[in-house]
């Protein structure tokens, strides 16, 4: 009996986590002109309205460019650091790891304020560069944690075999280590992109006036009250940030199966 109670509890907890989000997706297809219940038909009009909304499309472009740049920089820094931590016996490893994940331990508001005021004092005011710097430092710890966890599983023997067969370290890195690391690199980059794409607190501190990312755009639209357009925008974001990783994982599995047979 106890087990069944736990099962029902778990179902309720999952319902609590997903029902509100499911309602967002459901209402975004609502034909009702106020976008509320009762739904009286399915329509794509809110998505059409999004497509024709210049501010929203601009926010999308900003978010995507920012996310891609953050992913490239953060993944590069994160992969190099993870390699050092996993592959070498670095003195003071624990201190270095704590230091590198420190940006998660500091509340985001504090991180946002410190970076904004310091770079401003150096003469770099609110700008895209500040936004990018903020997103890089904020995503770096997550990339390092994800990449490090995956790197541990790659055996060193393969590299040693390449080296003993006469490849130099650079050749070994590019033709053995990097291909083996690719899933870890991709996972890190995807993680960085998604976190950057979703970030709002830091972004509100760092963004220059007039520049909006998708989350800050939703935030400013919410001031007027919830509209079906916001739900549609939410649905598009969910598809992007949930659908892309799932698609990536499916492609990776297919590739792995192909190379396995």
């Amino acid at each position, binding site marked *: 009996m106890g087990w069944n109670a736990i099962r029902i509890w778990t179902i309720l907890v999952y319902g609590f986590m997903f029902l509100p989000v499911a309602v*967002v997706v459901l209402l975004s297809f609502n034909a009702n002109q106020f976008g509320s219940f009762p739904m009286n038909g399915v329509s794509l009009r809110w998505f059409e309205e999004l497509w024709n909304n210049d501010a929203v499309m601009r926010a999308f472009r900003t978010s995507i460019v920012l996310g891609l740049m953050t992913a490239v920089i953060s993944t590069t820094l994160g992969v190099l650091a993870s390699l050092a931590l996993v592959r070498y016996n670095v003195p003071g490893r624990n201190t270095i790891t704590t230091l590198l994940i420190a940006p998660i331990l*500091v509340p985001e508001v504090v991180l946002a304020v410190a970076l904004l005021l310091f770079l401003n004092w150096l003469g770099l005011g609110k700008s895209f560069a500040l936004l990018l710097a903020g997103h890089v430092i904020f995503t770096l710890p997550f990339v390092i944690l994800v990449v490090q966890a995956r790197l541990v599983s790659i055996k060193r023997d393969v590299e040693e075999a390449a080296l003993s067969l006469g490849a130099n370290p650079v050749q070994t890195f590019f033709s053995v280590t990097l291909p083996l690391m690719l899933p870890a690199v991709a996972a890190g980059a995807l993680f960085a992109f998604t976190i950057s794409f979703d970030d709002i607190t830091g972004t509100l501190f760092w963004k220059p006036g007039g520049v909006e990312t998708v989350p800050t755009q939703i935030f400013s639209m919410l001031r007027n009250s919830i509209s079906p357009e916001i739900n549609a925008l939410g649905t598009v974001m969910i598809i992007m940030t949930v659908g892309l990783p799932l698609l990536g994982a499916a492609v990776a599995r297919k590739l792995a199966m192909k190379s396995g047979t």
Partner: protein
Amino acid sequence: MSVEAREARQPWILLSPALGAVTLLLLVPLIFIIVYSFWLRSAVGGDQVGFYLDNWQKVLTDRFYRDILFNTLKIAAITTVVCALMGYPAAYFIARSKGSKMILLLLLMLPFWISYIIRTMSWINILGTSGALNSLLLSLGVISDPIQMLYNEGTVILGLVHFLLPFMVLNVYVSLEGIDTNLEDAATSLGATRWQAFLQVTLPLSLPGLAAGGLLCFVLGAGTYITPVILGGPRDAMFANLVFEAIITQLNWPLGSALSLLLLIVLGVLVAIYNRYLGMSQLAKGLG
């Protein structure tokens, strides 16, 4: 240079970009705002460089700031307890279930990929005056006019629990997964009931995960800015809202620095206590 010396330098070359970024974009800025918090913003707008205790005096003695700080900690504490009560049984179910474990874990990761602001605003669709719950109650005839259920402290806590619950479930799950189920079986075969075996064997062994989840929920909850703005009323401001107000609206940067540092110190003390007794490795496990 000898081969050994080159070997020894290599990891530092690999580490230097990341360490450089953390130093330049986090450590130095934090030191900078410590210095900045002792400056003064003059009435005309410029900063008066010097060593003034005015900001700190204001932050530490003004009742307005103190009340909001305590309220923030109270909200974070309630959120953490609710997350633990809701999340622990669910984590236990995932860890002990056979068939549905993979799908439950996959689903548990989903909220991390769904934007925080969308998950927060989704409650407006449920609890708002034209939301799902009001429509349901109206159509059932329970109420004749929509009730405003939003914009109070309760909905702020609700939004925070919704945001932080996956962190709790994941951390507890990771620690439960590491416990040998034979231990519980051994306890029951020695005469303990399943409930006793859970209370005296499994629960104590899973406390590190519960503590890690609790720390994350508390720190993230206490530092939140968005949830009170979207789901709270005018009197539900939390500490991060004060910081935003000082920095972005009033442009009083020295005061904003002192406020941010106060938040950092209060939460930092908690993290330090946690680190002293449990270490950071448990936290890294849950995050990875």
